[in-house]
Structures are given as C-alpha cells and as structure tokens.
C-alpha cells in the first residue's frame, strides 16, 4: 500500500518536473531569454501558442492511451491488448475521417471516432471470445486483420479526399501531435476518467480473474464490463482525435507497472495514466529535438521503440505456454 502510494507520488512529481523541461526544449532555445527576465512576444508565442498545447496534448494523449490500454487488457483478459495493435485506433481514425469527408466537423468528428472505436472493440470482443475462452492467437489475429482493414479504408478515404486536405489527414495514419489543438478537454477527460474508474479498482481486480470468479465473489459483471467497454472506446477516440494513431503506449505502460509489482487496479489505473503521460511526453519531446529543426511524428518513434518490446513480450509469453 505505502509502496504503491510512494510510486504514485513519484510519478506525479516526475510529470510536474517533465512539463517545464519539455516546454524549454526545442529548436529555439528559450531558457536564456526567460532568464533575462522579460518575455518578448516571440518567446511568448513559441512557449504558449506552439509548445504548451503540444506538451499538454502529449500528456493528455499519453494518459488516455495508457488508461485505455489497461482497461482493454482487463476487458479482453490479455496483457497484450492495446488500442493500436487491436485496430481500435484504426477504427476511430476511420470514423473521424468519414465524418470529415461527410463535411461535418468538431464534435461530430469526435463522435465518428467514438463510433469507430466502439465498433472495433465490439468486433474484437465477439470474434476472439470463441466458446467462452480467451485465446491470445485469436485475439491478435483478429486485431491484426481489423487493423489492416481499417488501414485500407483510411488509404481509400485519403485517395478520395480533396488535394489540399490530404497532408493534414496523413497524421491519422502515423500519429502526430503537431496538429493538436484544444488539448485541455482531453486533459480534463483523462483526469475525470481516472477519478471515475479508480474507485472501481476492487471489482476490476476480480474481473481480471474471469467472469465466473468475479460473479461468484459478488460482482455484477454485465454492467461493469459495459462501462469499461464504453470508457475504453471513449478514451481511445479522444486520443485518436487529438493525435492520430499512436501505438504501444497503451501496451507498454501497464506492463511496466506490473513489472514494478503493481497488480492492484486501484493503483495500476492511476499510475498507468501518469506513466503513460510521462512516456508520451518524453517521446514527443525527443521527436521534436532528435533531428531539429525537422520534427518526427511521435507515432513513428513510439512504434520504433514499442515493436521490439512487444515482440519480446510475445516471445516470453510463448515460452511460458
């Protein structure tokens, strides 16, 4: 208990330290100008109009994805679940793109993403839940095929889209935070979702042991599972609307915490949100400065780091049978 509390506090402190650090990093040094005591209009514009939204977006999207990943792993009872791998980000992207092509925007676009994510999770859930038993191979195959299908649909939509729009739309495919606008709502969403789901940690611990065991210990499984299902879809949809398809944060974050000995979902879920935020913020800052002044899409970076880790986990899981 105390150890977990200290970990949560440490993650909170690290994130509080990382945010100003990320704001100060970039192709334009702002540190010395800040130290001179006066904030000239250019520095102020770089800091507050360019970097701050992106930093907040990284924090929010990282938290959303990690929380969605932890919930999906619970829902599918498989530690390899992740919104990106299972094609749920793809579903959300397709939904959002369809909404854009239909000529609507704003909230409708987010609604499209939500609907796409919902459909994807439902498909993965029903198709991989053969005869009541969960099977990793079947789950991953379903996810891979769905992801391929959504990828094709996204390519089709991009081909049909008017010339000017294509460049901005490409980020749905690779995940990029440089277009992120209005990230504050997503930040509020991740905080609210964490506060909502953490008190349900104890029934969730039971759900991780399987439906039957949870039912026997007094959990009304149906409503709880529906809640997770909608919440995971909503979180993924918000993350995708803001940053496109960013992979592996949702997979890696809960896994790292389990390695650190956090198994209780009352701690795992808030710690996941914080660590996910921290990881994506670090990745995005790296993406901004690695080949500055050129910028990398952060999804490329997370995939480059995430793929080997995922393969390692898959191989290790195979050894254990």
């Amino acid at each position, binding site marked *: 208990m105390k150890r977990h509390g200290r970990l949560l506090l440490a993650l909170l402190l690290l994130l509080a330290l990382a945010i100003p650090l990320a704001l100060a990093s970039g192709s334009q040094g702002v540190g010395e100008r800040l130290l001179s005591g006066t904030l000239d209009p250019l520095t102020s514009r770089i800091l507050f109009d360019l970097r701050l939204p992106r930093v907040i977006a990284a924090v929010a999207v990282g938290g959303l994805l990690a929380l969605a990943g932890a919930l999906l*792993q619970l829902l599918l*009872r*498989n*530690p390899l679940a992740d919104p990106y791998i299972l094609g749920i980000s793809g579903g959300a992207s397709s939904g959002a793109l369809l909404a854009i092509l239909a000529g609507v925007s704003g909230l409708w676009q987010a609604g499209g993403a939500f609907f796409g994510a919902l459909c994807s999770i439902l498909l993965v859930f029903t198709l991989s839940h053969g005869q009541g038993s*969960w099977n990793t191979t079947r789950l991953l195959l379903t996810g891979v095929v769905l992801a391929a299908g959504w990828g094709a649909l996204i390519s089709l939509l991009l081909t049909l889209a008017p010339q000017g729009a294509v460049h901005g739309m490409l980020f749905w495919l690779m995940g990029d935070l440089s277009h992120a606008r209005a990230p504050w709502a997503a930040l509020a969403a991740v905080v609210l979702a964490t506060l909502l789901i953490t*008190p349900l940690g*104890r*029934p969730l*611990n*039971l759900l*991780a*042991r*399987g439906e*039957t*065991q949870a*039912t*026997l*210990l*007094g*959990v*009304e499984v149906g409503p709880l599972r529906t809640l997770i299902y909608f919440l995971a879809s909503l979180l993924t949809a918000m993350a995708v609307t803001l940053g496109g398809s960013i992979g592996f944060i949702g997979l890696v974050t809960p896994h790292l915490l*389990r390695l650190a000995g956090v*198994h*209780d979902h009352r701690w795992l879920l808030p710690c996941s949100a914080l660590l996910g935020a921290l990881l994506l913020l670090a990745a995005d800052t790296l993406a901004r400065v690695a080949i500055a002044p050129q910028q990398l899409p952060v999804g490329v970076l997370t995939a480059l780091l995430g793929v080997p880790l995922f393969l390692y986990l898959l191989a290790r899981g195979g050894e*254990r049978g």
Partner: protein
Amino acid sequence: MVELRLQQVTLKRAGRTLFGALDLTLRGGECWAILGPNGVGKSSLLHLLAGLLPPETGTLTLDDQPLTTLARRALAQRLALLLQQQHDPFPSRVLESALLGRHPHLGPWGIEGEVDLAIATAALARVDLTGMEQRLVDELSGGERQRLAIATLLCQQAQVMLLDEPNNHLDLRHQQALLRHFQTLARAGDLVVMALHDPNLAARYASHVLLLHASGAVLHGEATTLLTSERLATLYDVAFDTVDGPVGRLFLPH
C-alpha cells in the same frame, strides 16, 4: 441453519438433460459428496447450486428465497464456490489474491482493514501458505495454487461452500488436512458440498452423498447407508471390493 432446496429441478447442458425433476434439500451441518463418472454434470450441478447456471425447470431456494432474486453480492456473502483451476493472465501476489475473498463483505468504497487482513492471514495459515504472502501466484506450484484458491474461499466466510474437486493437485497430507477442515466446518453448522472422484474420501469425510449416474438417475442420502460396492459398481461401471479398514470401509476397484 442454512438450507438450500431444489424443487423439481431439471438441468440441461448443451441440449442434453443431465437429470430431471430432482427434489433435494441440503442443510447446514451436512457435508455432501457428489460422485459420478466424467461428464455426468458434477460441475454443472455445483454451478446450478451457485446460481451460475439456471435450471431448465423447477426452483432453487436459499433459506426460502429464490436464488434468482438475490443480488450477486448478497449471495456471495452466504455462498461460495471453489472452481476447478483456472488460468490467470494477470498473476498478483498471494496475499492480494486471498484478500479478494473479502470483496462481498466490503462496501463499494471500502478498503481492506485489519480484520480482513487477519482473516486472510488465518486462511493462508490454514492452507499452509504462511510465509508466502508476497510471492507471485505464477511462481506457485499447482498444489500451492489450489491451496491459495481454498484460502480465498475461506476468506469469503460463506455458510454454503461448494467445492469442485477440492483435492485436485493436493498432496496426501494437505488433502487429509483440508477435507478434515471442511468436515469440521460442516459439523459446526455450515453446508459443504463437494464433487469428488474418490469414493473413499467421500466415505471418510462426507455425511451425505449424491450419486449422479450417466443415465441421469440420481441417488442421494446418508453416506453410511448409500455407499455400497454394488451401488458404486453401477455408478462407475467397475466392480468394487469392500474391505474393512482401520478408519472405516474401503472400496477397492477391480
């Protein structure tokens, strides 16, 4: 005393009738053993008694309340079921696992307190897992995992304990110790119902037996009168010899 009553219950699984129109009353203070060959529905019967599997026809009541009208949490405070070993994709620590059994007794915002910790520690001591509280479940052997599952069930402190092959994976010493413990709990007023494969364990620890035949026929009653080598021969389709041993009768299959 707690009472679990079946009235005219028919149970089907995958389109096949396991048994029809069963009348049976199970009371606190009794220790039941369910015997029968593979696939006759011993587990299904336990799932039925736990309210997990609805009967095709008939009613099932716990202290005169229909099981279907009870909320899962209220039911879990009074009735527990030990499942056959299950795969756990998210192994946690031994103590955390045992504490899960306290869930039905904690309020929605409750946190496990001193009392729950004491109950879990006692349950782990009962199954001989003291000193392993901080071990990860996937580092345990099959028998140790089974003992942990029993500890979790004991933490639930239910008056009705349904056990699906509780002696699975257990070595002889733990088999004897734990079955004796359930026998003691039953004598103190709880209701214990366990599916077993060994008629000798049933003869030694159960006060009542229920013989579930492949034909769907059900015989139930006191263990001393119902357990004979002839009835077991019919049940298992194997001939039995009866030998008088130092602790009671022994049934030896040919």
